[in-house]
């Protein structure tokens, strides 16, 4: 099957290796992966900031770039949720675009959701050895129902020991632009998340959304924790290369 990768702007800028890991995973599952070159951002920052017009423009851009493909996969629950669940409403006033959105959106998936429910790879390329605690990111968890999918995939890696932290489903305090508008509150929430994660003494905190991971990593390092690794689930599942 042919899959178009929606890289996400954060991965593009901050952690390209997550994008490449996603490609390796999809290829391991037998998918032919294409990466539309003109892709940029899903428009979530504008949408959540109340700039509906800008968000609608970017929604149309994403639909036009990706709708020819059978499946669209993003290594982010929050971007996948934005596209899958918000685009139809965002374009509700424009019948033609609304129709295109309705045809397009059900084919958009978050990476681990796609791997477990659709592609189902027999083997994963990753070889992580150590303990992991998993942070459930809000949009993936509560809007896309992503909870067991990453855990099931991680459990396929023989070297991984999964340790649940208290409050795994609680928000890490990132919240997109919230993190720069209310930095103090955001960092204070992140501190609780890090404290919860650290009770497990896991080698790595793993999640499916880079925004949360940058927030958690930034807080951990400021707190003086240099040893706990913060990794995207795709990096763990695909292994280093």
């Amino acid at each position, binding site marked *: 099957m042919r899959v178009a990768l929606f890289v996400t702007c954060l991965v593009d800028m901050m952690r390209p290796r997550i994008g490449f890991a996603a490609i390796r995973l999809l290829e391991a599952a037998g998918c032919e992966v294409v990466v539309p*070159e003109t892709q940029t951002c899903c428009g979530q920052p504008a949408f959540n900031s109340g700039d509906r017009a800008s968000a609608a423009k970017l929604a149309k851009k994403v639909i036009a770039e990706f709708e020819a493909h059978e499946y669209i996969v993003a290594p982010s629950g929050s971007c996948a949720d934005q596209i899958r669940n918000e685009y139809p409403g965002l374009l509700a006033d424009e019948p033609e675009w609304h129709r295109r959105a309705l045809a397009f959106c059900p084919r958009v998936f978050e990476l681990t959701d796609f791997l477990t429910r659709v592609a189902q790879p027999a083997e994963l390329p990753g070889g992580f050895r150590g303990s992991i605690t998993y942070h459930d990111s809000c949009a993936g968890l509560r809007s896309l129902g992503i909870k067991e999918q990453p855990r099931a995939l991680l459990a396929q890696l023989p070297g991984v020991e999964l340790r649940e932290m208290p409050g795994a489903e609680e928000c890490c305090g990132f919240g997109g632009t919230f993190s720069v*508008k209310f930095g103090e509150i955001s960092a204070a929430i992140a501190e609780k998340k890090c404290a919860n994660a650290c009770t497990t003494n896991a080698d790595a905190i793993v999640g499916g959304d880079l925004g949360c991971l940058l927030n958690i990593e930034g807080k951990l390092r400021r707190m003086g924790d240099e040893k706990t690794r913060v990794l995207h689930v795709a990096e763990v599942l695909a292994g280093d290369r």
Partner: protein
Amino acid sequence: MQIRSMFFKANASAALANPVLQGNLRTSKGKFVDKRRAAVADFEAEGGDFEAMRAAAAEVRNLVLKDLDLWLEKFESAATARGATVLWAKDGEEICRHVVDIARRHSVRKAVKSKSMLSEEAGLNQALEASNVQPVETDLGEYILQINDNEPPSHIIAPVIHKSLDEVADLFEKTHRKPRKTEIPELTREAREALRAHFLDADMGISGGNFLVAETGSVALVTNEGNGRMVTTLPRVHVVVTGIEKVIPTLEDLSLLLRVLIRSATGQHISNYVSLLTGVKRPDEHDGPEHLYYILVDNGRADLVGSQFQDMLRCIRCGACMNHCPVYQTIGGHAYGWVYPGPMGSVLTPLYNGLDKAIDLPHAATLCNQCGVVCPVKIPLPELLRKLREQQVEKNLRPWLERVAIKGWAWVAGKPKLYALGTWFGVRYLNWLAGGKNRIGVLGAAPEWTLGRDFPAPEGKTFRELYSTRRR
């Protein structure tokens, strides 16, 4: 209540810097969350379907809101037929005027109150004092706040959740002039002793109302302390102050809504007291008020009917949204600056007071949707917050720098070549800031981020650069 929501950010900073408050928030965090979770689990273990019940509760509330005027008229005629007087108030000032008039008419000198958030909206206590009527709060939490120089509540059902046992013990020692108590039962007994005399010589009882039942003209009250029952049965005059949206059609609907309300609020299966009060004292009855007044309040609610914010009027004031909110859990309720804190407050405060009075509140949420999934009447709180943000943008109320940044980002993202160039420079700039380290300590472009945490440095090149080279 004087609104202070425009100072949200400063309020929140002060809350974060207050070690006593932070300790109290840590102690209380999760208690309501755990209790609600257990109550829902119990309900489901007994074969119940909590999700179906939430949906049914939301449907009842929607049904009422569709024909709110008709249900209110129905309530009014049923209540009037049972000897009550129904008055209407368009705002807080009118609430105060009505209550003061009633107090004068019945020569009231003291009024005992059970919890009413509407009386907070109106600043009723101050109005009563100005008219020489002594208001006495009898809900334990509200009593504590009243004797602490009329401190405002920080939670809609647990008004003193921000205080520690020690703080209350100090306050009681100072106010009651009795030896300092340290155990909760002793403190409660001391408050009860102080309050009993007030109950006995009060001429008027003022209560809120959780629900107004249209078919019977009754008010339903949900409490845990029993003070509500004393307030509504002992004094000769009872005044109910509640919002026009609280009406529901039938007793059957009441039983459904009580089930979701109480589990969502305190995690109890049923509260210690559920009172259903109908009409004035009849000749064959031993207790109950001789005069019963309903003051049904608009104060911004009617404007929401038929608007894109109508869903908010479903709210049954359980407090689950704030209990589960990471922001509320971190800064407490006072920072929100008005009567209602947390997600429901961040929607209601700007709607009832004006968008410009609470510019930060719709943004003071991570949109994690924990509130939305626990709301017993399925109010899409994050969506409503986002709609408020849209209204702020439409009315040009956001800071210009933010507008430029968002518009600019979206504009660049619409032009792939420009975006590629921008991100090429962006990651190099960030790496230069990191100076060879894997993190940035001070980020000039987003200084708020690095106030309390580092900003991890980017890997080096953008994905699109690497992808185009690797593919070649």
